[in-house]
């Protein structure tokens, strides 16, 4: 344990409005802590730079799953376990269930939140690829109101998001429009459970005849942030699935993937495996 806990402040204002008011009063001073599965590790390793924290873990206003006809709205404070237990999400958004199930252990899923996973903004995070493929929208909230933007515009760079200093992530909305879509997600980690991603790919596709009528691909650990693989999508859209298409898709992915060497894996491995996952996805569409 490499921090003196006595040097940190933590308050838990009773309501979301109270939290937002406190943040608005001193923008940039506070860091929100939900389940703590990232920030408490930083504390333990002596690397929690932020000294003033506000707990949002208890806020019911942020922990909900609301199913409407056209979309499912998930509060930022919803835990991975909440997601795994939800029948509507299981039905409509299986990739989100899958990615929630391999985020850490059961104990960490009981505390970790979807909002925390997104806002921590690691390029290796588990849920962004699925949310990008699904074309999610994020709603940000502050004392002065709400605003929404496409999730694909949320990650601005390495661990940098569109959140203003006075804002919290309120919810993530995912459209319910994937009836008939084929869905694929695969994470390649250092082991089968409790592993940080070396590379992950989420893909959904609508096949009409043998033609790719729509295709969305989200990826982890191929850039400094989670990405939509736009070049691969553009290359594949409207094509018949055959060997030439697969080769073209692989080449397009290779052109936009910029993975790095780090302590967990190498850039070449990540790039090669990402292409293999794309091929695996495309071949699954052939049957």
């Amino acid at each position, binding site marked *: 344990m*490499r921090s*003196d806990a006595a040097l940190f402040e933590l308050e838990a204002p009773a309501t979301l409005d109270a939290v937002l008011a406190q943040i608005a009063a001193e923008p940039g001073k506070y860091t929100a802590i939900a389940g703590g599965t990232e920030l408490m590790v930083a504390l333990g390793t002596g690397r929690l730079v932020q000294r003033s924290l506000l707990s949002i873990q208890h806020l019911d206003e942020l922990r909900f799953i609301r199913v409407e006809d056209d979309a499912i709205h998930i509060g930022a404070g919803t835990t991975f376990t909440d997601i795994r237990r939800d029948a509507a999400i299981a039905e409509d958004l299986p990739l989100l269930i899958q990615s929630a199930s391999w985020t850490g252990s059961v104990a960490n899923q009981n505390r970790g939140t979807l909002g925390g996973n997104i806002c921590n903004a690691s390029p290796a995070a588990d849920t962004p690829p699925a949310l990008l493929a699904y074309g999610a929208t994020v709603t940000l909230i502050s004392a002065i109101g709400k605003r929404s933007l496409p999730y694909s515009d949320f990650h601005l760079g390495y661990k940098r998001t569109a959140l203003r200093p006075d804002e919290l992530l309120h919810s993530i909305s995912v459209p319910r429009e994937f009836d008939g879509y084929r869905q694929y997600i695969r994470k390649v980690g*250092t082991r089968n459970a409790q592993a940080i991603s070396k590379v992950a790919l989420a893909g959904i596709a609508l096949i009409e005849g043998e033609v790719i009528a729509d295709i969305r691909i989200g990826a982890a650990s191929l*850039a400094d942030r989670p990405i939509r693989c736009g070049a691969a999508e553009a290359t594949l859209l409207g094509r018949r699935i055959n060997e030439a298409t697969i080769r073209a898709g692989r080449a397009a992915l290779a052109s936009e993937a*910029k993975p790095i060497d780090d*302590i*967990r894996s190498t850039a070449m*491995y990540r790039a090669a*495996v990402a292409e*293999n996952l794309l091929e695996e996805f495309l071949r699954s569409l052939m049957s």
Partner: protein
Amino acid sequence: MSDRTPILGTSPLRKEGRAKVLGAAQYIDDIELPDMWFGATVRSAIARGTIRSISFGSEVDWSKFTVVTAGDIPGENTIVHLTKDHPCLAHQRVNHPEEPILLIAHPEKSALLAAARAVHIEYDELPGVFTIEESETAVENDDATRIIWEGSEQGGTANCFKKYLMYSGTAAETEDGLAAAFEGADFIVEGEYHTGAQEQLYIENNGVIAECNKDALGNVTDVCVRGSMQCPYYLVHALTLVFNLPSDKCRVIQTETGGAFGGKEDFPSVIGSHAALLAMKCGHPVKITYDRAEDMAATTKRHPSRTRHRTAVSRDGKLLGGTIDFAIDGGAYATLSPVVLSRGTIHAQGPYKWPHLRVRAKAMATNLPPHGAFRGFGAPQSLFGIERHMEKIAKVVGLSPEEVRRRNFLSTGDTTATGQLLSDPVDMQHLLTRALYEAGYHDKIARFAEENRHSTIKRGVGFATFMHGAGFTGSGERRLNSLVQIDVLPDGRPRILVSSTEFGQGTNTILCQVGAQTLGLPYEDVMIAQPDTSLVPDSGPTVASRTAMIIGKLVERVSVQLLETLRCRAGLPANHTAEEFKVCAKQYLAEHGTLTSSLRYEPATKIYWDDELFHGDAYPAYAWAVYVAEVAVDMNTYMATVTRFDALQEVGKVMHPVLAKGQVEGGVAQAIGYALYEKCMWKEGRMMNNQMTNYIMPTSADLPPIHVRFEETPSIHGPSGAKGIGELPMDGPAPAILNAIENATGVAFNTIPLLPEDIFERFTSFTEPGHGGSEEFDVTRQGEFLPEVLA
């Protein structure tokens, strides 16, 4: 009449098991002493150099702290094992990252953090060496700037802690024989095999609490250290030198220990000495516990190794002769490297007949934290070499892996390459047949070959055949001269007194089983004392797979002796009941006050071993094994997974089926980690992945079903014939797994750990130069939980 149902061979409840499942077992960090302070260690930030200055930042009120430096050590500034090259605290020179320089203590644990950060040390760096090859090169080039270790009286030379030269016959005979063998060989097969460092990763980190008493003049009169450890008397020895005290003034108590695997064999001498020094200077008991990051970065690991084989083989696959060059990386100080080297040297031959064999072995010094004991202790390293090499021999000659083993196995009445006659029955032919049958090996070879043609998942099977010597090498047990005692408690129950420690492997349980069976008492009535050196004798360290066999046998004999005493002096009848035993024991106590029976080790048969020639009876007994691994290699992700594991071993006597199975399963799991997951990532001698997120140990979701089977060929050396099994399971899995991967993919890999990146690199290197393997990991980019370097 008492009921003499055997207790050995059954599975009574673990002696301290109830406390463990209740969460009531007291590990060192669960213990507080009155007035206790906390200690921390300030460590070198560089790999090699001199300390230019140490200053203490004024942001901290140092009057509230106690600081200990090398100058405070009353005795010798040394952590003794075999040589005195290892300082307790660095004085002017540092030789590895994380080397302890000074110690600080304070009543509040949290105050230590800021204090440690406020110690500013300036260094003049010197060039370091970080691999076996770099260390060798410095010697070859006579590069004085990179001679990092000077030599010793114990047979060390520049940069080399120890060398062994082992011949199967006399030197002259063997060299002549080898020359002829290579001359006349149909094939000469060469190979080089590498194994990496491995972290023991016991779930309980190192920790101790020390107390120190002084007389009116301020001289230390005695010290007492309690903590997580395998060998209380090793720490006693270390303390006698650090404090210049006799051993009866250095009391050491082992507390419940949460895993060890060798990682708490030699290392507690360091942390125990440190805590005692702080206790001495601050006048309070001092607790030092490491957090995971410190434990991983600063304590001992398994020795990395390199084995080079050159073998003369006949056209029908028989070994005609061979040379083996075996090298291990010992880190910055000798610690136990000579002994690891010794065991690795002796096991390098595998379970085979060598008409002529020469093994040249050396332990090199590098500027890494000293490597130390880890289950297997040199044997996993050299057995990896021979078992991979036999596969290569099979390929070159055109035989199956099975056939090449069969044509070379040692058998009853044969002599090993150290000249040990195998008089106890050994039947590797049968073990191999049984193991392959139970694993469905032949069927899988055929089936996978067919299925692999149409699948991106390549499946394969492979096996390893091996042995592990139980007990200390050669004359080691005689030199240890273990003493075992048994006494009787006031209520008439016997109590075993040994320094053998429990750390999960079942010491308490099996020794009480032996006692109970021999004494004719229920298992529940036999007690064993907590290892406290003020109470228990030195029965040697809990290492080397010696506890069941050597100490078990001693417990059996001393129990017999106790019975004789009671029969002769207290009228205990033959075929006594448990009640009669208690009555007689209490009667004896009433008359004589105490009842203690003592016995020293004596080998059951003559053991001839020549340390100089490295020849003779290397171990009192061997356990023999055949392990079979089934793997699946996913060619999309290049990940190799073990999908099934079969472990068959002949162990003399299975003393406790549940415990024995648990030992094998746990050892196999650890060895799967050694082979496929656990890579230590070094940067200039510092372990960079010193966290559980980045040092990858298999979880329950990564391990296959492990099928364990035993055979029993009793050995005269152990109770009811038992031989040691603690380390054996570590030896076989890695080569078996890589043999299986070769079967699955057709590609031979000769380095472990074998990561997916390495498999990927090799496969893509068939078309272009290899890249993207695990040697290209960038260890400065940590990823989660630590500051990342921008891409």
